[in-house]
């Protein structure tokens, strides 16, 4: 036990001396960092290798995470009005106009891995919108494989249906 404590003490001392050296070098170098960041790092920038990396999810698997995710409906407004996942937000997919900042920013608040996109199968709009959201910097975006038809087939809840 005493030996472990001695190793721990030495490790702490090494860490402290190294950190002090880092602080000294940072203080004298021209491109040194302020010790407390003055503004947030811009982590939501396009990285080429990260573009369009939304992951598919089977509708049957989506049942288990419904309470923990925000569903985004990528279908058109009429299809959304005819029935959608409970609490879903409508963000109709458009190949010509990707979602704007005013649509993206509120979605960031849900946090990483909390966005599940449901689209329709003909356009594969769920996958395409999910890719747009991932490209815009939202992390861990998933989409329902097979879109809203698969959602209904899996017996998942629908609201707003006539």
């Amino acid at each position: 036990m005493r030996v472990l404590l001695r190793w721990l003490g030495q490790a702490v001392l090494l860490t402290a001396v190294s950190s002090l050296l880092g602080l000294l070098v940072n203080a004298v170098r021209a491109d040194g960092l302020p010790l407390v960041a003055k503004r947030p790092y811009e982590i939501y920038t396009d990285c080429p290798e990260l573009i369009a990396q939304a992951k598919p999810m089977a509708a049957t698997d989506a049942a288990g995470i419904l309470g923990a995710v925000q569903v985004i409906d990528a279908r058109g407004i009429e299809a959304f009005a005819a029935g959608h996942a409970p609490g879903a937000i409508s963000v109709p997919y458009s190949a010509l106009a990707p979602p704007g900042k005013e649509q993206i920013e509120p979605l960031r608040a849900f946090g990483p891995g909390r966005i599940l996109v449901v689209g329709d199968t003909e356009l594969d709009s769920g996958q395409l919108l999910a890719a747009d959201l991932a490209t815009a910097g939202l992390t861990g975006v998933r989409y329902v494989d097979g879109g809203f038809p698969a959602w209904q087939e899996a017996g998942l809840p629908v609201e707003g249906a006539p």
Partner: protein
Amino acid sequence: MSGSAPSRFRHHPLHGWLGLLARLGLGGVFLGACAYKIWDPHEFGLSIATYEIMPLSLINLMAVCLPWVELIIGLTFIAGLWTRASALAINGMLLMFIVALFIALSRDMQLSCGCFASQEAADEIGMHTVIRDFGMLLPGLYVMIFDDGRVGVDGWLRNRRARAS
């Protein structure tokens, strides 16, 4: 040689040389990892921020200090100076990296590791990254348990003290 079989095994002279190999390999990895972080602390700060674990107020402090901890402890580890303490610190850092990777993976985050190069490098995290870090724990644990730095500065200092007395 006297003592029980486990004790004889633990103090076998071969451990000194195997420990040196482990120290050269793992210490070399740490020296390689700290290079870009020291060269461009802002880029490393960005890597830390991307994990979304550290509060903003601590990111720069970590970006400034951690690379130098990796450098100095990597050097003492390779040299066999305070060998066990250096191994303890190296293993501690590896555990910290593993926890960060686990948190990011559990959030389904897609980002570059930032371990050896900036976020722009195509080194996306995954279970392979976690396994790699666990793999690096093995030489670290080996050194902590079996290598007392006999082939290194610790051994040289002990011999010098023994000759002096």
